[in-house]
């Protein structure tokens, strides 16, 4: 880790290879499009390399990296929602034989993505790191610098709000 923090590119490559799957999946779950997720994951690694000088080392690099990636992905999602979306959302699940089933599945996935993206901070970050980044609550507490009980409270409240939002989406 010390060599990564000293800017050693070979050591950073090891970090990229170790974390790329988790970072890419988190970006894909937030953005819903493989091509966008690929771009955001790559940009997140470059942003992390630039910001290595500010990393305090008070937790695993994976959590710090995941936090950068989820923030960047939500920022990109906000920019994308500002622009007109020309093509309808395509579901991430395996292509169904029935086009209607595929469309409904895509809509449902989109509702989950938008509901999480619509949460206020810090609830959105905690929910995304736990469910999309697959970090443990201890890792989230370390990465965000918050006490574990605070993280638990944020997650519980985030899920409560999400339940209401998802219920509204389904009803609509």
């Amino acid at each position, binding site marked *: *880790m*010390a060599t990564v*923090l*000293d*800017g050693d*590119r070979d050591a*950073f*490559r090891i970090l*990229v*290879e170790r974390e*790329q*799957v*988790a*970072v*890419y*999946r988190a970006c*894909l*779950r937030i953005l*819903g499009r*493989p091509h966008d997720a*690929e771009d955001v*994951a*790559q940009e997140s*690694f*470059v942003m992390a*390399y*630039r*910001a*290595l*000088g*500010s*990393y*305090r*080392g*008070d937790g695993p690099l994976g959590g710090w990296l995941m936090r950068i990636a989820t923030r960047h992905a939500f920022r990109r999602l906000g920019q994308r929602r500002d622009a007109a979306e020309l093509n309808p959302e395509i*579901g*991430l*699940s395996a292509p169904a034989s029935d086009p209607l089933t595929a469309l409904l599945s895509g809509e449902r*996935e989109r509702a*989950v*993505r938008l509901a*999480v993206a619509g949460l206020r901070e810090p609830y959105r970050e905690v*929910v995304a790191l*736990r*469910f*999309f980044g*697959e970090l*443990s*609550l201890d890792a989230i507490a370390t990465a965000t610098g918050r006490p574990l*009980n605070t993280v*638990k409270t944020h*997650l*519980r409240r985030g*899920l*409560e709000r*999400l*339940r209401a939002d*998802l*219920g509204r989406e389904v009803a609509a």
Partner: protein
Amino acid sequence: MSRSPFDPSEVGGGLDPRDPAVEELERYATIATDQAPADLADRVMSAVAAEPTPRRGLLAWLTTPPSAGRPFARFARVTALAATLVLAVAGALYAGELAQLVRDFTVGSSSEPSPSVTESFEPSPSESVSPTPSVTPEESESESPAESGEPSEIPTSTPRPSTSQPSPTGQPSPTGSEEESKSPSPSQTPTETASPTPTST
């Protein structure tokens, strides 16, 4: 990479085990499990190659916990910081002493000519100010009395012309009321001009 499904007991109770939000999130997370593109690491490293080597900030350098291979790193950092502080304080003290010596030397040598310089500056502004107010009141008496109220030296000069004028202009009564409204800026003129107008009419 295996997923670790969410357990409602993680948040310490208060959450339904079959919470619909949790179920939706879990279902969604199990769907989106694509592998990263094979060339992602290569693309990242080619982008990183163009970046300069990151430099660590002082705060991050000091607060980074020591790694296992370098147990004395924290001690070395604290020592380096203390040495820097001592050097900075010593440098500041030395610079202060040096500045005091220079000040003593320059004050002792340059005390004589300084009064002659200050005396030469004083009369010049008083001469330049005095001509301007004496000219402006004469022009502004007939046209706009309100403009002459700005400078502080004007009231001493303006009442003289304004008191001499009402006697010729005080004959017609309608102009007296106009002069009351026009000349409120000097405080002496309204009392003089107001009294003739009612008695004349």
